[in-house]
């Protein structure tokens, strides 16, 4: 297992002061609003930025401190950015072989490594094409192969899904999930998307104004957000359990019906659905093809002309003011949350 990372870096000019540790093989999602310092963090670790003070250490080797400076090319770190940035004058295979060749392997060995990784990302058939002939999703897949072909101890991902169209993002997410779970390296994943964190990361770190404001296991952070940013992006219902053929079995044995989205039956999964997809009843409606979840009403939070009904279990429902009045809901009441099976996505969760 590789990829043990200790970062402690200050960059007063950008009001950046972060201290962060990664265990070998761990995948950590970095979330935060724009300008929070997420890309600065990656730049410092990759060696594209130099901290004013601090110390970055990877697998026992000091990359940077007061006396040491390791240039980017000598760091066992690879970077995958929002844009694939494939070298336009090289073929796909030459792009992937670029790293191995630069690290002084001979040409045929580098090609062999490239083909291996092109196989791993299902892009072998694109090997002799030029980047300009590929779609955005294909380019990013090749970029994943190129980054992994140098066998980095640490993979930095800077919003790798953000520039892809809606159709291509899930496929890349699946690919990353596959390659990140082999434990051969740790990874830092900067993202805006809660789904990325849920599916790919073991732990989440929330950055705001150049400081870490929150960190912990993904589900813990999202189920009990402690910063405004986390609360806002975590505005999503989440049930933990194991995937089944048509949904998910929760930890306490409840059955949830939903659309499987990459989760194989039996594996750890989460069911996610938006509060706006939830309807609230006093008693369970009969004969409806919905998921019914018995809850105890906690807080009622006005949000414009809607009210968010928080259940004590952490689930939430957005309903109109009128409905709240009709149901005469108040904290402590028993109620039933229902949600259509088509509104529930069952996603594989991180290891």
């Amino acid at each position, binding site marked *: 297992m590789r990829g043990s990372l200790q970062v402690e870096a200050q960059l007063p000019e950008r009001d950046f002061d972060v201290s962060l540790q990664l265990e070998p093989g761990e995948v950590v999602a970095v979330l935060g609003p724009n300008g929070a310092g997420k890309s600065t963090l990656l730049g410092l670790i*990759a060696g594209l930025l130099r901290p004013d003070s601090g110390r970055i250490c990877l697998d026992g080797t000091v990359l940077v401190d007061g006396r040491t400076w390791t240039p980017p090319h000598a*760091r066992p770190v690879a970077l995958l950015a929002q844009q694939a*940035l494939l070298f336009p004058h090289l073929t796909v295979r030459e792009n992937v072989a670029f790293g191995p060749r630069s690290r002084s392997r001979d040409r045929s060995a580098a090609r062999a490594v490239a083909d291996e990784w092109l196989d791993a990302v299902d892009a072998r058939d694109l090997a002799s094409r030029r980047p300009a002939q590929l779609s955005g999703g294909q380019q990013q897949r090749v970029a994943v192969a190129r980054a992994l072909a140098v066998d980095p101890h640490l993979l930095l991902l800077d919003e790798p899904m953000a520039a892809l169209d809606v159709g291509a993002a899930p496929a890349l997410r699946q690919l990353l999930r596959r390659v990140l779970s082999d434990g051969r390296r740790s990874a830092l994943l900067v993202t805006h998307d809660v789904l990325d964190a849920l599916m790919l990361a073991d732990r989440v770190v929330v950055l705001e104004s150049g400081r870490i404001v929150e960190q912990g296991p993904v589900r813990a952070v999202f189920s009990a957000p402690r910063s405004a940013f986390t609360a806002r992006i975590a505005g999503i219902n989440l049930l933990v359990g194991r995937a089944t053929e048509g949904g998910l079995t929760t930890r306490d044995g409840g059955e949830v019906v939903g659309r499987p989205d990459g989760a194989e039956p039996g594996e750890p999964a989460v069911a996610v659905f938006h509060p706006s997809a939830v309807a609230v009843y006093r008693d369970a409606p009969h004969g409806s093809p919905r998921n019914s979840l018995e809850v105890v009403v906690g807080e009622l939070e006005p949000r414009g002309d809607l009210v968010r009904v928080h259940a004590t279990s952490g689930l939430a429902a957005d309903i109109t003011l009128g409905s709240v009045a009709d149901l005469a809901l108040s904290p402590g009441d028993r109620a039933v949350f229902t949600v259509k099976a088509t509104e529930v996505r069952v996603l594989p969760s991180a290891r």
Partner: protein
Amino acid sequence: MMPGSALRKPLPGRTRRAGSTVPVWMFVPAVVGGLFVLLPLVSVLVRVPWSHVGALLTSESSRAALWLSLKTALASTVLCVVFGVPMALVLARSNVRGLRVLRSFVLLPLVLPPVVGGIALLYTFGRQGLLGSTLDVLGLQIAFTTTAVVLAQTFVALPFLVLSLEGTLRATGQRYEAVAATLGARPTTVLWRVTLPLVLPGVLSGAVLSFARALGEFGATLTFAGSLQGVTRTLPLEIYLQREIDPDAAVALSLLLVAAAVVIVVVVRGRAAQGSL
């Protein structure tokens, strides 16, 4: 109706060209200016003695000038690439102190009258010059030799390559270079395998521009290298000389340079259009 769609409709009674914001009267000075550039070129073509242009171009002095010009302009272009590419890289990519001042000096030959450049070269490499006296001791004489022609042409042509390439480098940005570095490529590897291939169009168009400038160089060459047939008398110098002896020969040789200029403009424009994609 959308407010935008009304703007796209041609308004009756006004100019039919929708979206054109150029006042009509502006076309008058524009056309005059265009004619001012085109007419002299046409005048040369009209004066070309087409019946014996072949003979004029193959006369001994013409061939000597032509061959010398090609040789020296190519040599200058090579020197421009060899020194100009590193200069452009340093200007575009490094953060050495005083870079702005340095850039201004590099661009000086662009605005300096070539005859002044020739004088400056003479006081550098001439017998009494700054370096010339040292070179003289070593038995090297540069002024009034073919080498002087190459130096004079390189002096005036270098900024063209540096400027053109620096612009390309800045437009290309450093993102690919950063990616290459994180993939383990050392700076030299990045240069050969990423930076230079990416800016190759800029190098080529810069080289073509330098070649054109070298080919047309007159003032600095005459001052620093003189006008000796087969040694320092390049095409422009030959044209100037023949103008008094044999105007037909001068026109025929001018035709050659006009043709070369047209080809170069087409090549560079083509490159520029490709690069902007």
